[in-house]
């Protein structure tokens, strides 16, 4: 079993049948936020972790829960918002400026507020922009405490800006009048990693299968499969296994 929020992108539906064919291993996906995924794995309820919060993952390994961690692939974050773009994000030159413009324009910003990888990323951006977003919580800063999809539903419906990973956004079907307004900044880089759960801590773990899956994902076959996955003609993930 493995956990992450990449499910909404449809990657698993595409990847898992290929994996099964090549290795015979059948993977069950429990898709929850990064925070819950890591904590679930700490209770040994899972064999393999596929999430996107490098510091948390490294701590997971350091505490002995994970066997080791490998980079797997990356995509990037984008900021979406209403087409009218009241904060004029299109004119922002970097992320910090973009965040400040959102705050100043009085527009709303929908945050996941769920300690997920995306949420952590977003908080670091506010910090970098020296804005205390918590002070505006419930007014302009809307912490939805939900997954990416639900947060997008909320943000789109309220004409708010949302920080999202590109994969989820491309697959997202309820876009209404929202579009990508800010993208392509190096600060918005999003690294995914795989971590097999440590069999020393969790004797019940299905160690071989986890190992096989990890190897396959990092192999040339797996990597090129990831790279070849496209939605609406756009690639969602970029393989970079080390």
């Amino acid at each position, binding site marked *: 079993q493995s956990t992450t929020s990449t499910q909404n992108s449809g990657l698993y539906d595409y990847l898992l049948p290929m994996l099964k064919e090549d290795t015979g291993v059948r993977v069950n996906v429990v898709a929850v936020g990064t925070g*819950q995924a890591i904590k679930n794995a700490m209770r040994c309820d899972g064999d393999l972790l596929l999430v996107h919060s490098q510091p948390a993952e490294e701590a997971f390994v350091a505490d002995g829960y994970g066997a080791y961690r490998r980079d797997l692939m990356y995509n990037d974050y984008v900021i979406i918002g209403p087409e009218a773009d009241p904060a004029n994000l299109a004119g922002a030159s970097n992320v910090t400026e973009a965040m400040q413009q959102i705050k100043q324009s009085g527009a709303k910003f929908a945050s996941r*507020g*769920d300690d997920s990888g995306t949420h952590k990323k977003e908080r670091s951006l506010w910090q970098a922009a020296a804005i205390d977003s918590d002070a505006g919580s*419930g*007014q302009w800063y*809307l912490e939805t*405490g939900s997954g990416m999809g639900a947060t997008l539903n909320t943000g789109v*419906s309220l004409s708010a800006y949302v920080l999202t990973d590109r994969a989820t956004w491309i697959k997202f079907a309820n876009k209404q009048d929202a579009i990508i307004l800010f993208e392509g900044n190096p600060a918005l880089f999003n690294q995914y990693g795989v971590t097999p759960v440590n069999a020393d801590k969790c004797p019940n773990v299905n160690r071989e299968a986890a190992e096989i899956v990890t190897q396959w994902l990092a192999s040339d076959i797996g990597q090129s499969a990831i790279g070849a996955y496209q939605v609406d003609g756009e690639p969602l993930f970029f393989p970079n296994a080390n």
Partner: protein
Amino acid sequence: MDALSEAFRLIITLDEDLFEILWLSIRVSLSALTIAAVIGLPLGTYLAITRFPGRKFCILLLNVLMGMPPVVVGLMVYLLLSRAGPLGWMGLLYSPTAMIIAQAVLITPIIAALSNQVIESLHQEYSDTFYSMGVTGGRAVAAYLVDARYALTTCILAGFGRAIAEVGAVIIVGGNIDHLTRVMTTAIALETSKGNLTLALSLGAVLLALSLLVNALVIGVREYAQKRQYA
């Protein structure tokens, strides 16, 4: 155990955030319950005591609507209230009002179906006499509601239980926005998704305590009134 002591700590430290969330939970659930009772009780009663073609079908429908998934109710109310929807101009989406609407839609069939059952059995006893006395329509409905009031409290408590425990609908139309539409159940879901299982459970314990309080109050009042009457 951790969860209980944590719950206890949260309550005695009068955690401000907790009280905000708790209060919103109560407000939303009670408002929805009131609406649902005002519609559901007379509706269930009416369907129990009048005979018209299609009546059986209405009761069937109520039973089906009892099994309406909260997520679906949430979605429907969402589409209704969303900016593109027919009531979008009211700007109610992601507000407590939206949550009240969704919950009322969800609970009304429950209260109607259960009260229908309660009144049905009283009707077996009263029907001939009421027919003979020419008591029909609104007067009959009112009389049944009054005379079955003690049995109806269980229906109402079932509705309250459903409302206060419900998460699927309120999270869709309310959005679980901190300081705005976050209620106990959505907070529990959030903490769960963060992996803070102990905190989530302790919030659950607080919610159960609230439930206990409300139920004890209602049942206590019922017992007292019943005793006074038949002493």
